[in-house]
């Protein structure tokens, strides 16, 4: 199985028609089940690239296929639906909606995607069980998970809940944008291990983006924005 999850060719991106070109990436590929580390200093356009892959931004030239689908051919609402159906996101900070419970936060994508909802479980109870399983396997105590509002969780715990949300319903692609930057070193590695394990279990491809090159040892495939983006 070497079907490309992401297949990007000759991407050229700038914010405004008259502006400077920010990204010029001749080629970037992500194969199925790969765990890729993409390194780059802050401000180099990593997040912009992720927004492009997520279908939030579109580029004026080039081609970007995600799961074989030319993503810019889709309508805007089509891209929104495609995003939730096939991609799970984890961000650096503030991943959770403070007014929802931990389970509700984890199950949030399911209410936007029937594909992932069906994969997570046939009934509501099944889906809840799946959410609880993920929470547990990502190392959150169940009693903690049930009782406490999400804002009282530590940052490390919040990131695990965010990871569970990205993973639920087994999306083909997990995009993690600096998910460990606010964690201390020890937590970083245990978080990564759990993330790898769950990605393997669900057969998800992982694109891990960070400025911190010390993390790259954990990954087999590495790449850096400097190499990809010929503008810099």
């Amino acid at each position, binding site marked *: 199985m070497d079907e490309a999850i992401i297949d990007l060719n000759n991407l050229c991106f700038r914010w405004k028609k008259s502006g400077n070109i920010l990204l010029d990436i001749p080629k970037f590929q992500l194969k199925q089940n790969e765990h890729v580390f993409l390194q780059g200093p802050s401000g180099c356009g990593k997040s912009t690239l*992720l927004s492009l892959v997520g279908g939030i931004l579109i580029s004026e030239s080039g081609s970007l296929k995600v799961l074989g689908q030319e993503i810019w051919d889709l309508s805007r609402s089509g891209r*929104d639906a495609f995003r939730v159906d096939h991609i799970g996101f984890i*961000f650096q900070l*503030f991943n959770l*909606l403070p007014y929802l419970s931990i389970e509700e936060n984890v199950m949030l994508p399911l209410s936007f995607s029937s594909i992932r909802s069906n994969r997570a479980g046939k009934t509501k109870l099944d889906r809840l069980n799946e959410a609880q399983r993920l929470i547990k396997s990502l190392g959150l105590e169940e009693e903690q998970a049930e009782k406490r509002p999400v804002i009282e969780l530590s940052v490390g715990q919040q990131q695990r809940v965010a990871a569970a949300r990205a993973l639920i319903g087994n999306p083909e692609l997990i995009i993690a944008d600096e998910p460990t930057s606010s964690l201390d070193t020890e937590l970083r590695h245990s978080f990564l291990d759990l993330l790898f394990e769950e990605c393997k279990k669900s057969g998800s491809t992982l694109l891990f983006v960070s400025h911190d090159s010390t993390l790259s040892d954990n990954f087999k495939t590495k790449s850096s924005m400097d190499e990809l983006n010929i503008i810099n």
Partner: protein
Amino acid sequence: MLNILVRSLWNRRGTAMLTIFSIVISVTLLLGVEKIRKGVRASFSSAVSGTDIIVGARGGQLQLLLYSIFRIGNAPNNLSWESYREFSNNRRVRWTIPFSLGDSHRGYRVLGTNQDYFKYFRYGNKKKLEFSKGKSFYEVFDTVIGSEVAKNLNYQLNEEIIVSHGTGKKSFLQHDDRPFKITGILRPTGTPVDQTVHVSLEGITAMHVDWESGAPPMEGESLSLEEVLKLDLQPEEITSFLIGLKSKIHAFQIQRRINSYMEEPLSAILPGVALQELWNILRTAETGLRVITWFVLFAGLLGMITALLSGLNERRREMAILRSVGAGPVTISFLLIFESTVLTLTGIIFGIIFLYIALIVSQPILETYFGLFVSVDFLSLQDMILLVGIVFAGMLMGLIPAIKAYRQSLADGMTVRI
């Protein structure tokens, strides 16, 4: 999705409640003003409900209506007893009630009339006057007082009161040599009757019998009570009189005959027509009041936009998260329109509840102190239309933050630079 919306709103309940509160106030005000406006009209109409024609000396119809029924202002002139007799004997006339005005008691108007007043006068929904205590006047110096006079001045039966000459609150000329005894107190009516001191026409004559051209008699020239009572106290003049017809069909015919009466210049008015003129005058004030309440509502809705707009910045993260799990910018902006609609609707519901509580509480107060009867009934169709309009206005107002949220979530995407 609905769950997210409700929980998100609940998370910001402090601001949301303030917003709702300002809408509650404006809705209550808007509906309340409308209720009071109707109440005012109803009270005015109520005071003349059984009367077909009002007759007075020649003058404006509104003036006649105001001084004879509402005890506001003074009559320009009197009319003769002969004219009154002439028309009260007309074959089309079922009853007449003579009114003699011009004196007062501690700010309350004194009305000279006869027993027909208690027999024929109707108010509200064709209701008869009733006594809460005592009975009608039979002696010359008997008086029947309205419920409010009794309550505010704390008068009991058989107490004696002094009538002042003229209608000012502080009159220097007192009819203090001829006190009146309270023989009856009327039940509240919500009309000017409550604020009236009723005496017989003979009582009015008796008070003024030895006066000359509006001045009290010289010392030593005034008559004693016994002397007065021996005189013929039939009045020579009265101020106005009310007519009840056997059939309303003849109202215009009788009115025309009175207006063209050769013996004396008289004015006959139809209360409904005169009230209409009153409404026309009051309309400006009503409009002013309504404009103010509209502005209050506008301010309330504006407050809502302000709250939503200023909340948007804090909610960028929330929207970015929703974007990352597949919510489109349209969904995000829909969220805000829905929110403003929910806020407006809640405000309206509580506004209605608040209005009814306020009405129930204030109804007795308004009735006793202002003679204003505000009915606690269901909302009129007009009110409903108004409320639906407010909901739409609320939705429309939500559009402004919604558009901003739409742009913002397009620009931010899933990442927020805080």
